[in-house]
């Protein structure tokens, strides 16, 4: 047998290696377990039971499981709230407890979650999937859920759920008044009444006695002076206290005391904190024009044409190329001849009646009537009827013109 060096190590080391093997297995079990034990599995299971009970097994089977996400690239939000709050779009759970409650119809009708996500309105941390992190109730997340609970902590007068409106105003900032934003509307009304712009620049214009408030909602909370403040040290609390008595917080201020009620001060604080430098994409700005504007006169003329005697020509689209002067229909393009005297014009140009022409059009009209404007036989009859009516009017007007012209001739020319 070949030489084999004796070594004390195997007896000592092998058990250690075995223990390490066990530790490796333990670590695997631990990290797999930590990944599986998430809150949302429980909530999803419970919701499925609720749907099965209320709406049947088949609907319960269609409830998705696992992580759910609403990705809104325009607002750069990936909101995973619907992983737990699955009932948001389900009809029938309006009175359930959260997170199994249907979302109220009104606000979501104009703000569908596919387009807005959840966090632009409600705040919170959309990235997260665990309860406290998702509600923003952790360190290093500055946008907490603007919930009724938070409103109750601040003893909001009137509606404890009003804090949410701060986020509404990020987009609705330049509205005078918005339905559903009572607190903010109240704040904006106060802004006008109390003349804040006399001393402060707000939304880009105003006086310079006090600081510019256009983006004051972005001011870091540490930059406020809390030395003379009692209670919660938050920017919101500071503003409420400041509105109620400016001199209490800043002893040498020239801002007068406006004798505001708590409700007023809170409304203004919400308004002021909503003034932030947020890049709102154009398609999300309410009231932003989607097309070039129409003047009042243009609108009036359009209305007349749509309801006047030439309305049929407007509805079918004939007026795009043809004016019908006698009915007051003016074509924007005026490519083709005026149809007021089409009856005789078609005859003289093509040697056909309008009936024949519409049955067998030539030239441009053959292209238009085969591709652009398809008229059923009934519609063609109506076209002829309308053209004849136009021609009748044309003849009547010609007669009247001749009479008047003749009358003036009788009266002597100038």
């Amino acid at each position, binding site marked *: 047998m070949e030489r084999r060096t004796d070594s004390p190590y*195997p007896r000592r080391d092998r058990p250690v290696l075995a223990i390490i093997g066990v*530790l490796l297995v333990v670590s695997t079990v631990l990290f797999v377990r930590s990944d599986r034990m998430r809150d949302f599995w429980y909530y999803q299971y419970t919701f499925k039971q609720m749907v099965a009970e209320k709406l049947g097994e088949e609907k319960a089977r269609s409830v998705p499981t696992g992580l759910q996400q609403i990705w809104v690239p325009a607002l750069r939000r990936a909101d995973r709230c619907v992983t737990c709050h699955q009932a948001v779009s389900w009809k029938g759970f309006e009175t359930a407890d959260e997170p199994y409650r249907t979302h109220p119809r009104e606000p979501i009708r104009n703000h569908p979650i596919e387009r807005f996500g959840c966090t632009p309105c409600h705040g919170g941390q959309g*990235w997260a999937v665990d309860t406290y992190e998702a509600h923003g109730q952790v360190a290093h997340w500055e946008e907490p859920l603007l919930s009724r609970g938070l409103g109750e902590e601040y003893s909001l007068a009137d509606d404890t759920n009003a804090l949410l409106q701060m986020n509404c105003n990020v987009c609705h900032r330049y509205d005078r008044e918005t339905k559903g934003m009572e607190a903010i509307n109240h704040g904006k009304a106060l802004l006008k009444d109390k003349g804040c712009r006399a001393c402060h620049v707000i939304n880009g214009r105003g006086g310079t006695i006090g600081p510019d408030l256009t983006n004051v909602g972005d001011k870091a909370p540490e930059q406020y002076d809390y030395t003379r403040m009692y209670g919660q040290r938050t920017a919101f609390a500071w503003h409420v206290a400041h509105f109620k008595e400016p001199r209490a917080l800043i002893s040498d201020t020239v801002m007068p005391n406006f004798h505001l009620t708590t409700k007023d001060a809170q409304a203004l604080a919400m308004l002021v904190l909503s003034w932030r430098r947020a890049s709102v994409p154009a398609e999300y700005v309410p009231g932003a024009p989607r097309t070039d504007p129409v003047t009042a006169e243009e609108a009036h003329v359009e209305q007349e044409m749509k309801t006047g005697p030439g309305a049929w020509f407007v509805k079918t689209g004939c007026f795009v190329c043809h004016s019908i002067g006698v009915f007051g229909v003016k074509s924007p393009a005026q490519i083709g001849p005026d149809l007021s005297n089409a009856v005789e014009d078609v005859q003289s140009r093509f040697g056909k009646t309008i009936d024949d022409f519409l049955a067998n059009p030539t030239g441009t009209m053959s292209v238009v009537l085969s591709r652009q404007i398809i008229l059923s036989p009934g519609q063609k009859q109506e076209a002829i009827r309308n053209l004849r009516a136009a021609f009748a009017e044309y003849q009547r007007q010609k007669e009247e013109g001749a009479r008047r012209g003749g009358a003036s001739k009788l009266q002597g020319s100038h």
Partner: protein
Amino acid sequence: MSDLANPAKPSAPGVHPEPLWSLRPESDRASGDAVVSNFLLHWFPAKALKASLDWNYSMWLGTISAALLLLLVLSGMPLLFLYVPSVERAYQTVKDIEYVITFGSWIRSVHRLAAHLMVAAVALHLARVFLTGAYKNGSGRGQKREWNWVLGVAMLLLTLFLSFTGYLLPWDQLAYWAVTVGTNIASSIPFVGPKIRELLLGGRVIEQSTLIRFYVLHIVALPGLLGVLFVYHMWRIRKDGGLARADREALLRERAEVAPAPTKTYTLLGIARGTAPTIRASSVEAADATVNAVPDLTRRAAIVNFGTIAILSIMAVFIRSPLEEPANALVTPNPAKAPWYFLWLQEIVTDTTLHIGSFTINGALIGGVVLPGLLVTLLTLWPWLDRSPAGAAGVWFAKDRRTQNLVFILLAVVIVAFTLIGTFCRGPYWHFYWPWQVWPEIPGRI
């Protein structure tokens, strides 16, 4: 079939019938064959000194550092796929890793803990090498342990720089301001400082250019360089005849002069000439002093590697990685702190601003550049400045090196103290707070 009582004899020299024979060699010759035939084992010697294997001597800190490096590379792989180095997307991808990627939070924790522990392990390894005087040459001829020491110092700096570049990548407030502090210290180097800062940042402000530079440094340039130096470091150990303790073992035996072998001189670039280092033959052949490297050395290496992986994996389940608010150039967090391994620097920077009459010498220069520069230079050159005899190499707290060991320990304690002060005693506005004093609450928005 063979069993332990009757191992099969190889049918011919070098032919081994048992599968996986190289991991469980049954004789000394098979053990020697193993390091030649198995690529994974090729960097081990055939025989290892029992003294070198001692847990108490080296505490295997070097192996721990290497294991942590391996873990960093392995955990960095999935992160490479999941993280996007763009200022618009970086934060979001890290949030995704934390919340929606399966095992993402754990992988990130492994990576972060391995990074922090590697800095600590490398520092401890350096301390061990210094305190045992293992940078000194012993009884061998042609040894160049002092260069291995320089390699080690270089690898320490690389480790710190790797950690620093990785720190920026999440692009949160912690990252952004830590890099601001760090690069501002760099810019206080006279003459070249601002240029260095501009080179690091890719401009004048910390923006996309900075992020992509730090990213490429972190994933390609620095790990590549560290890998090369690591390989060189290992090669030098073999060339120097093993750990410094091995020389010491040889000193205790009878001197038996062996003529230097004129064959096979291995050099890095093949341009050196000379003979192979002379190892006292007695130390290699002393039966009671050595064991087969395979499997005894490899088993211990496996223990250290897998043990590190196991312990770190378990720690990562319980210790989550922080992520602060998204980086905001307009709001400085209060206080803004450098990563812990630079906190001692930040502390002395704040303490060393000198006012001489109307002149102010910036603390960043003295505390941030001069002092650490001096320390690093001293550290690097110490093997040449050390005057102790060769017999002091490979011994813990050798009498001949008492003074330098004490000074080293003192400096280390001071650095650790500054780190602790910076961590626990510096609050908002960098005011000093005793550990039992409460820091003022940072106000929130609502």
